[in-house]
């Protein structure tokens, strides 16, 4: 946030374009990419990530000032897969855009075919009709590809950084490997159990690890209606000790009722918009560490 304010302040002071040349900047559309940029860039690069903490980067709409912050960046890391739709209608310099999943299109999972439109917090109505599932970095193979894409773009942009980029890429790979190990351990452990997800945001985990995840459309901040509950009760198989993955803590009522049904709640936030980035992938994995 401090960085974001600093950038806004610079913009309001109408910084001359030359200033952008003196410092190296990378903008990112979500926290995992911002984290990758900050690790790869190290001290030589400023990361532009102007998102407020309470929004989902996939559906966020930037203000003109926020778009301007992106326009000034030397590189703009995109998640690809139709993520962050605002990018499509914003004026961003095409040559600076880095689609981090362009090289792994084959690994992307098509989103559910039926279009589901619903209310989603302060942003209002939107439809989950993107071509692909969004949370690509949950698949370690894709995450590595995204790191490689970012590393390649940075090295090409600033060849003097290439040697450091190599080492930093290795550091990030190690972190992804650790995340992979933790997630693998967890899903192997629960593979026999019935797994629900409050939202269809874990498709890549479903694909990469053992187990079968059934996704619902439940919001953490609202209680599901009776119709949803009865459908859910019909679906659960108590003998398989069901667990339910949530991106955030559900309401106390929902939690109680789930526990009453013998469903174990596990919060696994994909960290699309983490407030701090340090060790993002490790912290992501830590959420299921002792489970």
């Amino acid at each position, binding site marked *: 946030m401090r960085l974001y304010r600093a950038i806004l302040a610079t913009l309001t002071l109408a910084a001359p374009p030359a200033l952008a040349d003196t410092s190296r900047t990378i903008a990112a559309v979500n926290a995992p990419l911002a984290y990758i940029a900050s690790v790869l860039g190290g001290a030589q690069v400023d990361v532009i990530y102007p998102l407020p903490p309470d929004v989902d980067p996939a559906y966020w709409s930037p203000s003109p000032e926020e*778009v*301007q912050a992106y326009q000034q960046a030397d590189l703009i890391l995109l998640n690809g897969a139709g993520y962050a739709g605002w990018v499509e*209608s914003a*004026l961003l*310099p095409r*040559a600076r855009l880095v689609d981090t999943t362009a090289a792994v299109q084959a690994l992307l999972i098509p989103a559910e075919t039926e279009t589901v439109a619903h209310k989603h917090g302060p942003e209002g109505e939107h439809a989950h009709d993107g071509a692909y599932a969004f949370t690509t970095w949950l698949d370690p193979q894709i995450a590595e590809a995204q790191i490689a894409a970012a590393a390649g773009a940075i090295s090409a942009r600033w060849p003097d950084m290439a040697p450091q980029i190599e080492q930093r890429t290795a550091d990030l790979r190690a972190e992804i490997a650790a995340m992979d190990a933790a997630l693998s351990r967890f899903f192997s452990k629960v593979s026999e159990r019935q797994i629900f997800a409050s939202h269809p945001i874990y498709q890549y985990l479903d694909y990469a690890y053992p187990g079968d995840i059934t996704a619902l459309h439940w919001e953490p901040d609202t209680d599901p209606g009776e119709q949803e509950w009865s459908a859910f009760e019909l679906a659960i198989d108590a003998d398989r000790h069901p667990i339910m993955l949530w991106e955030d803590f559900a309401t106390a009522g929902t939690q109680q009722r789930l526990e009453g049904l013998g469903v174990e709640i596990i919060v696994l936030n994909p960290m699309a918009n983490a407030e701090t980035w340090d060790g993002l992938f490790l912290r992501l994995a830590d959420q299921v560490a002792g489970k």
Partner: protein
Amino acid sequence: MNGIAYLAWRHTHFHWLRSLTLVLVMATLITIPLLAEVLTRAAETRMMSRAEATPLIYGSAGAPLDLTLTAAYFRGDIETPISMEDYDWLIASRLADLAPVHVAGTSRSIPIIGTDFEYFRLRGLTAAAGRLPVSLGEVVLGAEAAQSLGVAAGELVTSDVNQVFDLAGAYPVGMLISGILEPTGTPDDGAILTDLKTGWIVSGLGHGHEELTRQTKAALLLKGAGGDAITANASLPTLETISADQLADFHFHGPSETFPLSAVLVFPFDEKSSALLRGRVEARDTAVQILRPTDQIRGLMENVFQVKSVLQGVMLAVSLAALLAMALVVWLSVQMRRREFDVALRLGAGPGLPAALVASELLLLLTAAVIISLAVTWSAALMEDQIAQLWFRNG
């Protein structure tokens, strides 16, 4: 004051109408070639500086001058566009900064140019009012363009209906003016700049869905007779405004890599990149070319100067005729002053007095003519911006 000079002054002053006529004739004879020289030089400087500010232009093979004038000066359009595929190929080369140019259409004859945000950075364009565009449907206007359209930031501009690509039917497109650019003394002053997608919508390549609200112009409806007005006017052009909440509704026909561009401005990172890129383009495809605008403009200027030298010949002949007429006037005036010179001789003047008097008067008139010529030329040079704009727009 010297006696002769005083007499010359009194005489020219007394015969002011004759003096004024002579001064105007002389001033015209001096001003026309001077003005022509100053303005062509200014135009050349301006044309050349723009060419120099545009290292290379990539576009389809064909008339190189047309490509240069279209891409760097926004004059006319080229017949065969290139496509986004070419632009992406250039990006992938990583040898140059790039700015695509798509001549999308016009708004009251002012060119609407679709480009990339990079264009603003590469050309050093900043907003004097408002801001540079941040999203689809926003445009910035050059200072001259804003003035001639009489619009300000926050208002709308509407494209003229003369689209090249008429896939979705011709209709004018309304766009939000996000800002007005600082004047730069370049063709950017006379253009409307927007992003490529908006440009394609203006060209008729992209458009809104059917459910998009089309506001039929009230004025057109009123022309209808009574209740069947709407039916009667259903086929009339409707205004479609690209606004933030309608962005998602716009779609484009065809795969994006086939979308047209008039040209790509190429700013190589260094000499080596420039040489590499030119080599690669030549090896790539015979349907495209990459050229140096300076070569083209130099050639154009040589033609302009040839025309100018012909005009100078004509001017010389006219000047000679005018000088003869002036000589006649001076000779007649000397004849009429014979008595004056005779008296002067008897009062002790030297034999050179008549010549000295006539010469002083001519010098006086010539000085006035030169001052007028310089003043006219100077003001023309000051207004050269506007003159150049006219030239850029209509020339």
